[in-house]
């Protein structure tokens, strides 16, 4: 028994080391926030912090979906286009007076594209990079065709309140959705058989298949779930501004991939967590907000963002390596 306990104890020490090794991202986040707070008085106002929270709602939900897909060992390039398309269809449904029915319609558009991704990957056997690129084109084409390049207006204050502008316990509803999705996705990944099998498949798809896991069905489910979440993202987007455009969320996939990678999730699959993805999301959110507050023009912002991403990844890697010595 004594031996057993010592094994457990050394395991705890290992866990502590592992935590330290993965804490580089928190360090980077702290440095960024402190630096911005010192440089910019506007950054450290409470209003601005709430503002950041609202801004990261869309990116957060998209990044949680992306984290699932990446931990599974796949990639989803379609999320921005799918969110845009779902937003457009939902706005048209609202404009047509369908009322609450617009919500399941928006979710179904997202889930439908996710299902298409899954079917292309599993049954047509194309890599997810290609399959989701196909969905990206189709979703974008659909949104452009439906809008004919115009902005779709709708009048539904209840809808805007539900998904973006309302408040619950003092939180904007967009932020409430982020919290709900965060909790659900964290639970799903860390505390369910479904989540355990996502890690297993991401660790080695071939092994998982030989071990009897339903790899194909899991892939279709994860992509469909990611798609449904993009339906939600599309609705939050149109609720926030009160109209829908075909390019409403274009490029969201890149910010989401950046957030997931900043959160330490391995692009090869098998490793990663929703909590750390949230930190990655906050990093990107704070970065975007800070750069805007410092009155840096958009084009330079993009360059600085690129440089910051590589700096943070290097800090993270440095912390990991420091642990191994």
């Amino acid at each position, binding site marked *: 028994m004594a031996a057993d306990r010592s094994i457990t104890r050394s395991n705890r020490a290992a866990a502590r080391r592992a935590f330290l090794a993965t804490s580089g991202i928190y360090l980077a986040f702290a440095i960024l926030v402190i630096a911005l707070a010192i440089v910019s008085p506007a950054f450290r106002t409470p209003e601005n912090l709430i503002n950041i929270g609202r801004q990261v709602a869309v990116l957060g939900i998209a990044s949680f979906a992306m984290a699932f897909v990446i931990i599974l060992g796949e990639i989803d390039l379609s999320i921005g286009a799918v969110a845009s398309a779902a937003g457009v269809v939902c706005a048209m449904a609202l404009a047509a007076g369908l009322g609450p029915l617009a919500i399941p319609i928006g979710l179904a558009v997202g889930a439908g594209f996710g299902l298409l991704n899954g079917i292309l990957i599993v049954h047509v056997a194309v890599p997810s990079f290609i399959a989701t690129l196909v969905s990206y084109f189709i979703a974008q084409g659909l949104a452009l065709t439906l809008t004919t390049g115009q902005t779709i207006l709708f009048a539904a204050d209840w809808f805007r309140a539900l998904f973006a502008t309302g408040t619950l316990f003092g939180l904007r509803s967009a932020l409430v959705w982020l919290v709900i999705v965060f909790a659900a996705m964290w639970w799903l990944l860390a505390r369910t058989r479904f989540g355990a099998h996502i890690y297993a498949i991401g660790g080695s798809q071939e092994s998982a298949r030989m071990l*009897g896991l339903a790899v194909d069905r899991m892939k279709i489910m994860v992509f469909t779930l990611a798609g449904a979440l993009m339906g939600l993202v599309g609705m939050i987007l149109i609720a926030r501004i009160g109209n829908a455009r075909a390019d409403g969320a274009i490029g969201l996939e890149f910010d989401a991939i950046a957030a997931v990678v900043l959160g330490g999730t391995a692009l090869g699959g098998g490793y990663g967590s929703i909590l750390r993805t949230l930190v990655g999301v906050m990093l990107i959110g704070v970065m975007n907000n800070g750069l805007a507050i410092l009155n840096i023009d958009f084009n330079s912002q993009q360059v600085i963002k690129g440089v910051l991403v590589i700096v943070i990844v290097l800090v993270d890697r440095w912390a990991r390596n420091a642990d191994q010595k």
Partner: protein
Amino acid sequence: MGGFRPVSVLAMAPVLSLSSITKRFPGVVALDGVTLEIEAGEVHAVMGENGAGKSTLMKIAAGVHAPDAGAISVAGDTVRLRDAQTATALGIETVFQELTVLANRDVAQNIMIGVEPARLGGLMLDNRALYAQAQAVLDRLGIVIDAHMAVARLSAGERQMVEIARACAGTPRVLILDEPTSSLGRQEETLLFALIGRLKAAGVAIVYITHRMSEVFALSDRITVLRDGRHVVTGATSSFTRQALIRAMVGRDVEDRRRGAAIADLPEALTVRGLTRRGAVDAVDLTLHAGEVLGLAGLMGAGRTELARLIAAADKSDAGSMTLFGVPYQPGGVGEAIRQGVVYVSEDRKELGLVLGLSVADNIVLPGLRRFSRGGLLSLGAMKRAARQWMERLGVKAASPDTPVSTLSGGNQQKVVLAKWLSLEPRVILLDEPTRGVDVGAKAEIHERIRALADAGAAVLVISSELPEVLAVCDRIAVMAQGRIAGIVPAGEATEESLLDLAFAEAGLAVA
């Protein structure tokens, strides 16, 4: 042994029956009408050379591959094994040769995979029960591993034991063990053999694949031999002698083609002194003679590939020196090593050895492209002529030099790899697992080419995990254990057992 047979209503029907199974892969018939019947409570050894079809047959029984023809029945009922899940549900558990342990998960998560204790249909994992149940399985089997351990921190042998624990976690009716001892230490081996005894007594049918003769004779009740994808013979273990078994596997008496002459009289081609790479290779001394085939045997992770990579300058050494034909040899990289006539042929021909999308000819001339270049332009005619010449010399079976390499069989791909490197006319050739995944016929041909290379004056180092292979092809055999040379023996005096003894030797016990 085996006096006990559990009485069952279905006593007449074998617990697992594979009849007339045929399986084709592109370019090769892996199994050709093979029948195998496994009885409850027996240990059934399936023997055969690499490429005989054993692993393919096991993967069909495990539901991983679907047969092209044939029928499978479990306890008399015909079944269709759609996937691994179906097989597991029928009580067929498999410990695969290529470890399926997930390195990104912990021990308990691996053992309980697919049967994780949970409530609400899997929506609430019961982690306490997960670790408790996994630990109970480990304890029951006598495996001393903490269920919380990250698999990434386990040794190859421990991972193998975790895999065995996973297969035994439920209540298997049939347990398939595909070369389970290849990465086990002695203690773990003893544990496994005891476990097999207990399972057998409980009526579990065990299919056991191994290359080790001693294990087969000690453990099994019956033996089935496969060769070239065909069933050769099935019989009680007691009806086989060692010689008869080898003959059944190889299809002929194994001839001795080893060099009789004293190796010491041959000129030294490559000497290695104190070569070290931290954590992998530990102060290795080795002399390779021109005209000699030196085998490098040892367990997985003993440092054989690492040593070859140091010699080929694919990795940097931390200490040590080398000479090449008496001249100091300190290549700065693979390119320089190749220019000095030292080539390393990787064990993984798909990853490192071949460009699958290119033609046979393009692959063969790739490393020596410079020689076909005239002022920056390639002479395609000369390339094709050279390629055709090498194809003939090595007996590459392809429609033309323009055939894409991806369409060739494993054996022919391996010959293309050899041709590619031999076209550089190296003086020292390091071959890493030159016949892995190659069928028996091509294997014999490759062995002949290796001998011919040495006879033509090249110094050849052959790394192989197949002891029969090193025993058949090499003049001397060096055995590595834990990064060190545990011993060097003339092939004529070595047996599989004596080599294994060396491979398991603690570092520092070296004898020569």
